[in-house]
């Protein structure tokens, strides 16, 4: 496998893990524009552990998830007091604060970022991704998953049927944060570098788009969204390289990609993968 292909596949797998960090809160009716914050926490914690403490990667990855999950748990209480667009702003502000703190820690590289030597590689990244997909699928199939989806659909009715709204949303947010941390740990050890700039505002927006475009109704939604957002721009670039008639894509592939995003959203406003679609495929 060429370095180019393995790089794309690793990026895709990491994007899937990070997408779940936004998917889980979204499945419980929470919009999270702070994915970058949890990715940064996980990335820096894991990077510091392997680089400075010599902790093995397979230990650093779950510890990064724990650290990001703990922070998510703590910030969930003030964040869950907000609603709608204010929650989007609160989570966005959280990510900005995390970035602002990390950029001011010289021991972690400051503005220059953190370079690490430990390398994850495609097998590790893929294994963790498979575990994360399996975990999220299991979680959605539990009563807790049912409660999350019920809260998403109608929190007042869910409440009357005994669902603990606050607990459900806190745990969805916390587990999502932990998955963002694991994604950050994979990111820093796959590309041997992390800094605040590359996981900025646009990063969080793209992760949210993976989820909204993929769909929040099934565990396959974030996979579909991450696939689309990771592979479509690369596909357009390759098309420009391979076909002279598509040479214009070299300079305008992001315009075409943007149009494609709008069209897909118009075609599938509830996301690429919905419950109805999955049921139809199962019956077929």
């Amino acid at each position, binding site marked *: 496998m060429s370095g180019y292909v393995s790089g794309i596949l690793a990026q895709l797998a990491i994007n899937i893990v990070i997408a779940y960090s936004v998917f889980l809160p979204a499945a419980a009716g929470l919009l999270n524009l702070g994915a970058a914050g949890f990715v940064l926490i996980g990335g820096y914690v894991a990077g510091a552990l392997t680089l400075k403490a010599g902790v093995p990667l397979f230990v650093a990855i779950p510890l990064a998830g724990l650290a990001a999950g703990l922070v998510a748990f703590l910030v969930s209480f003030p964040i869950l007091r907000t609603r709608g667009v204010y929650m989007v702003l609160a989570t966005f502000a959280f990510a900005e604060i995390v970035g602002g703190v990390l950029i001011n820690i010289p021991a972690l590289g400051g503005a220059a970022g953190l370079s690490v030597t430990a390398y994850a590689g495609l097998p590790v990244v893929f294994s963790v991704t498979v575990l994360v997909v399996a975990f999220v699928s299991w979680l959605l*199939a*539990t*009563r*807790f*998953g*049912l*409660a999350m*989806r*019920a809260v*998403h*659909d*109608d929190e*007042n*009715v*869910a*409440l*009357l*049927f*005994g*669902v*603990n*709204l606050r607990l459900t949303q806190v745990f969805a947010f916390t587990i999502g944060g932990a998955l963002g941390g694991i994604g950050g740990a994979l990111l820093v050890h796959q590309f041997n570098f992390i800094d605040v700039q590359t996981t900025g505002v646009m990063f969080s927006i793209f992760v949210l788009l993976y989820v909204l475009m993929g769909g929040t*109704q099934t565990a396959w939604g974030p996979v579909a969204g991450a696939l689309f957002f990771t592979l479509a721009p690369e596909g357009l670039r390759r098309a420009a390289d391979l076909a002279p008639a598509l040479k214009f894509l070299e300079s305008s592939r992001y315009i075409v990609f943007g149009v494609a995003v709008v069209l897909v959203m118009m075609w599938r406003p509830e996301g690429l993968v*919905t*419950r*109805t679609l999955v*049921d139809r495929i*199962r019956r077929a």
Partner: protein
Amino acid sequence: MLDLENVSKSFGGLKVIDQVSFTVRAGSRTALIGPNGAGKTTVFNLISGAYAVDQGTIRLEGGDITALPARLRIRQGIARSFQNVRLMPHLSTLENVMLGEHWRSSPFALTRSRDAVRAAEAALADAGLGTYPGQVVSTLPYGIQKRIEVVRALAAGPRLLMLDEPAAGLNTAETTELRALLERASAQGITLLVVEHDMNFVRRLCDHVVVLNFGRKIFEGTPGAVHADPGVREAYLGAQAA
């Protein structure tokens, strides 16, 4: 079983429930009727805890539940349906029914476990809805959704089942099936409190009727007595009784 004592509720300056008192006897089938805007659904929301009571007391089997959080009332045996269908649109029929008994399940029990699926399937089959278990409910016809709501409430294992216009939008056959389902539930000892405009449905199902008008109780008695009362006829039944 259920006692409302001088219960009042206002929204801003508008008093929508004014000193309402009535008792729902254990095992009875009580109807709450009245014209639109009489406050019937508000009473349901107060009993189920969706709204906080401003004044008065609500007791369930002698215990004061006035300030009990809405989430915990289902543990006391109160389950309800809604005037407009409020199923979880993205969940399957089975999952919606499972939500009914969610409060007594372990959070990490699998929804696809054989016992959970069988229990929900049996509840659906009992209501004549056995052919729809895996379908996402938003794809089903209104009448079917309306009955699934009742099944979901029954799945909670309630002692008091509150149904807000359960027959609205149902055709004659569906209404008959619904009534049979509720009669079976009643025979099992479940107390019914029903808001309904279909007086034929009320007469056939219920043994006690409470009438509200402008947020006040204006009458209560048997369906026959309610039908014969001039005040009720003037306020609500006039057109139907004529």
